[in-house]
């Protein structure tokens, strides 16, 4: 394969270089119905799962068909999306903040054909390419991160557990049977790329073994002071070690103090945490972001450990299904998962879901832990 230059000249990097031009202006890409009714929308309605209409004061209507996306998309897949948009939507489309794709048309009679076309397209193994849904009081797409596809710190994969979970929750994606929206998110490590920490259901990768110490390279490659400073629990101390006869400047880790955050590894590649048995999935529930009715809140840890059982993480998907089913059956209309758990009391949450409670779930991290303990005689017997 021959190298083809773009025109860039390494010898003169600044030669007619263009910088700081920013992104394209959004309105370049608005379909006519959006451009003409920008800021003029009166109301919307969800006609069926995944199909929305927005009505403008001009009388115009915008029909949206929302389809699930894998987020990790090949250009071949994207070109197919373009082909559909050209065929039905005058060559425009959009992506949502949860990685779904939205096809918009300006009249009702274009919807059926579009939808039929979308649902007719399947992958070799029978998976839908463009499942329609993810709207209203249902379960929409799972926002997630890189996992084993691209990142260096994950404690679990991202795309794998997401595929497995969405397969299990598929009925909820294509319907609106939940008391309220249920937002599921995944982050493959504590860095929590995404709003995982405020999700109705959060799937989190977590390490459970302290970093390995590659002393030789710690000495050679790492800024030891940075690694030491990175540790939130001050578990890392400088240490002189002997490896194969040679004295090395390295570090030692007080394992009991380690909370497996991986921050040292972020600073120093010679302190990897990844481990086949150690790495696991943590489930957190009850977070929310919207200010609707109640204030936004963080998700709470309800399952401290589930194994990375590839390729389909059955323990994880079972636990999630169970939580979703109990919530759907027990919560009030409009009640988010976290609001429900708070209303019935977390002790009842564990009773109803049958999830075991253990000391791991009691906060013991820093001063604010106190505020999560119970400072009243009010509780329910379970």
């Amino acid at each position, binding site marked *: 394969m021959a190298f083809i230059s773009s025109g860039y000249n390494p010898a003169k990097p600044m030669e007619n270089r263009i910088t700081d031009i920013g992104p394209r202006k959004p309105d370049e890409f608005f379909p006519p119905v959006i451009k003409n009714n920008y800021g003029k929308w009166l109301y919307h309605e969800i006609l069926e*799962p995944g199909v929305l209409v*927005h009505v403008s004061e001009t009388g115009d209507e915008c029909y949206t068909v929302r389809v699930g996306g894998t987020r*990790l998309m090949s250009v071949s897949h994207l070109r197919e999306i373009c082909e559909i948009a050209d065929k039905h939507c005058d060559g425009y489309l959009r992506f949502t903040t949860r990685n779904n794709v939205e096809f918009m048309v300006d009249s009702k009679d274009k919807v059926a054909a579009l939808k039929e076309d979308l649902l007719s397209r399947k992958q070799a193994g029978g*998976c839908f390419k463009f499942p329609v849904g993810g709207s209203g009081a249902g379960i929409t797409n799972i926002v997630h991160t890189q996992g084993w596809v691209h990142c260096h710190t994950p404690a679990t994969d991202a795309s794998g557990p997401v*595929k497995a979970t969405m397969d299990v929750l598929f009925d909820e994606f294509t319907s609106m049977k939940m008391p309220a929206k249920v937002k599921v998110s995944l982050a493959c490590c504590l860095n929590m790329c995404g709003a995982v920490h405020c999700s109705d259901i959060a799937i989190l990768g977590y390490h459970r073994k302290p970093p390995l110490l590659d002393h030789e390279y710690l000495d050679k490659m790492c800024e030891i002071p940075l690694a030491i400073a990175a540790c939130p629990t001050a578990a890392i101390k400088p240490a002189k070690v002997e490896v194969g006869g040679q004295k090395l400047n390295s570090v030692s880790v007080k394992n009991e103090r380690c909370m497996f955050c991986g921050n040292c590894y972020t600073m120093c590649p010679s302190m990897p945490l990844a481990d086949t048995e150690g790495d696991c999935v943590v489930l957190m529930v009850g977070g929310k*972001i*919207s200010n609707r009715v109640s204030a936004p809140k963080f998700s709470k840890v309800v399952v401290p450990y589930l194994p990375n059982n590839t390729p389909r993480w059955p323990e994880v998907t079972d636990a999630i299904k169970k939580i979703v089913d109990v919530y759907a059956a027990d919560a009030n209309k409009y009640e988010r998962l976290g609001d429900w758990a708070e209303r019935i009391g977390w002790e009842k949450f564990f009773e109803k879901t049958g999830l075991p409670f253990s000391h791991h779930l009691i906060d013991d991290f820093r001063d604010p832990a106190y505020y999560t303990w119970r400072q009243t005689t009010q509780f329910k017997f379970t």
Partner: protein
Amino acid sequence: MEFKHKTPLLDQLETGPWPSFVTDIKREAESRKKNENNVEYQVNPDICEDLLGILELSFEHKRTHWKHGGIVGVFGYGGGVIGRYCDQPEMFPGVAHFHTIRVNQPASKFYSTEFLGALCDLWEFRGSGLTNMHGSTGDIVFLGTFTDQLEEIFYELTHNLNQDLGGSGSNLRTPSCCIGKARCEWACMDTQDICYNFTMEYQDELHRPAFPYKFKFKFDGCPNCCVASIARSDLSFIGTWRDKIRIDQKAAAAYAGGELAPNGGAHASRDWGPFDIQKEVIDICPTGCMAWDGKKLSLNDKECTRCMHCIAVMPRALRPGVDTGCSVLAGAKAPILDGAQMGTLIVPFIKAEAPYDEIKEQVVEPIWDWWMEEGKNRERLGELIKRQGMQKLLEVTGFKAVPQMVQEPRSNPYVFWKEEEVEGGWKRDINEFRKYHKR
């Protein structure tokens, strides 16, 4: 089709209703093998197959096989590229390098097929042909290329596509926003416009690391927070209003009478029984500021906290007010290291109209100056506010303390009085004191 590596584990993810990323990667691998359009691939054509191979290995080992990213990037920029190398380059030469490029998405993610197609052509030609649409921050993520292609890609983006990179590192990160006025009746702020405006205004901060750590802006048109700004941006701008909710009594009656579907039909797949305006709206209103007398809906706006519930349930009867602007919240971040933070309300209400000078000069820039002055390395704004206290933030911005900034006043009485606030000051003479108080 036969691929370079066997992937028995991944293959099990090719069934079930949800789209399979495995099948999709294979599709791209296949198209590269076939290469029907005779593309002069600028990176190892096995790149997709080797990705499948190394991913299969991770599924076996249950461990990532990506190494720590080295510092790679394009000349003059401190962000936009995440370096990545695999730890088994001999086995998987196609992904020996697998750098990602963050391309600044158009605000609220509308595309013309022409532009999206052009991006595909470029990425098929100079990268893996695999993307994330989109990354969690909002960027178009080009997933996997080699170092020698970085400048080439940047050159083509800027010269041919009039498109710049997004942020990474200790920069301003790529701002993002909800769909807002483009297709939402509730937008109290022009989210696309302010998002684009801020992105252009702060290009230098976005491309050249000058901050103690990353910094994020997000723009939500209303308190529903569809871009989750309140949970994940150092400064969240959330549309709101300070006048009255607009009421269409006829429509309200229609909802009460069951003629209109509640919540725009969001609960339609299940029989929740007939709509009960008292139970579903009045009683759920967190401030109890609404009443329904069987004919008329009344609403005491002075008590309303604009939570959006009633509006969401009866979109055709209720609409946000017309004297709109935004609330600004500061400090949201993920848990690393001292625990997550939600954005804290620092400006209850401010007008948000182009060119947004008041917001830039009175909110953004004073806060940046303070953070750049006082922030430690890798200290997020929220952590600085916690460390130095909300008072300090008020000092540097000159905001007046108002009760809206707190959920409740302090319960500890430990007020740090300043000497100038206390009559007589702090300098006192012990001997004078001892005249009245013997030892």
